[in-house]
């Protein structure tokens, strides 16, 4: 566990220069949330941004468990889904009784629903960490997902429960019909939740969570109960997951059994881990990447989920710190100005690596074309170059690219490792440490 989650920068060692960088990063984040939909004005991109915002809150809440407390959950979607369902019921009740609650407050209903179920379920499941916790979360996830199909009057069976967000009272003339207004609602909650969750990592509780993750035995020695700390962390994660679920329910105007299911739990795990659990912004990065992959890849290829799985396996095997760690690894080099020492090695390595990737893609697409029985007529377009799936030349190209690319790439990556060591040594000599 410790290898996965390197410690966060120390809170006390902040210099004025670092403070500026810190506030600049948050400023850029908030500006991006506000300005992006004004730059990309199409309805499609507003939908995409909304989905990314929901996924980012959800992934951040998941990282309270995985990254900060070291709890691997396979059932986090339970709190997301229950938050969504209670938000839908809440919206329907508000509309039916004419209560004076505008839509922007509805995510709080979801949040408190997530918190409530976190309080109930968490006490049992956080008794132990590690594998036992993972198994309980999986079991409870399956339990709730299966029960949702039995308790039809609340969960609406397979069809789910619908609502209409415009039935709620308008706020400052916004009725939240257009997607852009919903986006800003999501963006507002994204910023609030991100700040709140970041603040949580700076509290004594957040620090104790890290301690429980790294060495629960020692935490007991200094007089804390690891179970209670895991439990509190679990409740907070449930609260923010509930907010994300409520926002999803507002966005889609429906809540159904898929919200609570294993697939949703798996997607948030993928997003958080691909983004990186050891840095606070990692899950946001992961949410962006995974949402974009889900939306874009599915247009390009029929077997997009396979690529999704391969990317995840690749990250687990070769970059277990996720994308955020890959980026932040270069920080001492950038500061010391020795980044230029490894750029040539990167440029050399990237060519065979890309060729290898093309070979794998081509192989998968040829197999897909054959197993779908339309190999003779199908043409694979890779970077606008057409390949005929039934042509032996294509097979040859795929084989050469995959096998040749693999061995050449392995050679060039050794060069990268050597260049990395040289650049790191130079950075250390200049007084910059990782």
């Amino acid at each position, binding site marked *: 566990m410790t290898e996965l989650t390197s410690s966060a920068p120390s809170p006390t060692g902040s210099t004025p220069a670092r403070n500026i960088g810190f506030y600049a990063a948050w400023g850029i984040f908030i500006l991006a949330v506000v300005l992006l939909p004004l730059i990309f004005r199409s309805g499609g991109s507003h939908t995409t941004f909304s989905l990314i915002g929901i996924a980012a809150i959800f992934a951040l809440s998941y990282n309270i468990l995985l990254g900060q407390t070291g709890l691997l959950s396979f059932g986090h979607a339970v709190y997301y889904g229950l938050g969504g369902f209670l938000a839908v019921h809440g919206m329907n009740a508000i509309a039916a009784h004419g209560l004076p609650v505008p839509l922007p407050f509805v995510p709080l209903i979801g949040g408190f629903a997530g918190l409530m179920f976190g309080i109930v379920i968490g006490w049992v499941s956080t008794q132990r960490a*590690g594998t036992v916790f993972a198994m309980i979360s999986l*079991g409870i996830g399956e*339990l709730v997902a*299966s029960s949702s199909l*039995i308790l039809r009057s609340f969960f609406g069976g397979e069809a789910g429960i619908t609502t209409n967000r415009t039935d709620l009272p308008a706020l400052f003339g916004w009725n939240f019909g257009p997607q852009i207004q919903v986006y800003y609602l999501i963006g507002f909650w994204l910023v609030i939740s991100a700040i709140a969750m970041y603040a949580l990592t700076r509290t004594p509780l957040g620090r104790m969570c890290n301690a429980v993750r790294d060495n629960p035995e020692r935490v007991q020695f200094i007089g804390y109960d690891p179970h209670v700390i895991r439990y509190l962390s679990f409740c907070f994660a449930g609260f923010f997951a509930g907010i994300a679920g409520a926002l999803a329910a507002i966005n889609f105007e429906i809540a159904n059994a898929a919200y609570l299911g*294993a697939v949703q739990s798996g997607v948030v795990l993928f997003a958080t881990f691909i983004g990186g659990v050891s840095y606070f912004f990692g899950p946001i990065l992961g949410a962006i990447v995974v949402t974009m992959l889900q939306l874009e890849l599915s247009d390009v290829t029929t077997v997009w989920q396979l690529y999704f799985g391969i990317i995840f396996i690749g990250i687990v095997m070769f970059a*277990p710190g996720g994308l955020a760690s890959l980026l932040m690894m270069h920080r001492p080099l950038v500061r010391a100005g020795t980044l230029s020492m490894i750029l040539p090695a990167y440029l050399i390595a990237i060519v065979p690596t890309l060729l290898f990737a093309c070979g794998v893609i081509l192989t998968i697409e040829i*197999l897909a074309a054959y197993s779908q029985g339309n190999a003779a007529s199908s043409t694979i377009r890779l970077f606008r170059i057409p390949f005929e799936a039934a042509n032996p030349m294509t097979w040859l190209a795929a084989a050469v690219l995959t096998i040749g690319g693999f061995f050449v790439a392995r050679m060039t990556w050794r060069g990268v490792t050597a260049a990395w060591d040289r650049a790191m040594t130079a950075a250390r000599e200049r007084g910059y440490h990782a």
Partner: protein
Amino acid sequence: MLELIVISTLNGVLFGMLLFLLSSGLTVIFSMMGVLNFAHASFYMLGAFFGYQLTRWIGFWPALILAPLLVGAVGMAVERYGLRQTHKHGHVAELLLTFGLAFAIEQVVQMIWGKLPMDYRVPELLDFPAFTIFSTNYPAYKMFMLLVSVVIFIALLVVLKRTRVGLIVQAALTHPSMVAHLGHNVGRVFMLVFGVGTALAAVAGVIAGPALVTQSDMAALLGPILFVVIVVGGLGSLPGAFFASLLIGLLQTFAVSMNGSLASVFGPLDPSTGASLLTDVWNVTIAQIAPILPYVLLVLVLIVRPMGLMGTRET
């Protein structure tokens, strides 16, 4: 009533033995390597699909031998080139690797064989009723499945209790690092155990394929139940896995054949109250809640006895 009990007991024991074929490999792998193999049910699915494909090409009997060997080889490759590389990143990374693998295997199976159920038939040699019991014909193939799982169970028991390899594996269950210190090639033992474990899962897949449904979601359906079995039995306990397999096999089989509900015991609710959560709970039959019973059992066991029924160590 008696008929129901006899048939359900037979089916339950059969399902339980199938579960044990899977959970035995899973629990041994977990004890030795500390890795909960999320992809274990996926190897079972691979076994079923390889079995189906090989049956079409060369017949059922060669497939029964070949498919587990193939899957075992895949399993060994996964251990050698996947898990061993990931080991240095810790157990969470290993668990996530198998999680990603389970996802990828499902997608590959879906890509090659599609999402529809396969036409995987019982071999003609066994396609007859074995005996008739209270007017129900019990198929010979099910008796064959029971036979295969019992034979493998006994073979496993003999290998574990009576051979040197078994001795090492048993020692590694409780004292993994001590075994390594005694100079055994732990890497090779791990690879072997992983290979045998996945091959056992594949045997279960090949023989269960014709009787149950061979479809690309079979791993996702069985996987969680498997984890329930090994957690309820006690992580790392083979006898525990055995009893939990039978318990859950019987529990589910009996539950699906019962139609009772609160409404049938206490009479229906007053219809004027309308649809609510209470009416849902009141009218649901035991058969309908059968799929969630294993998870209820899991939660109960973890509250009452966190190390599982026969587990000795907490993880």
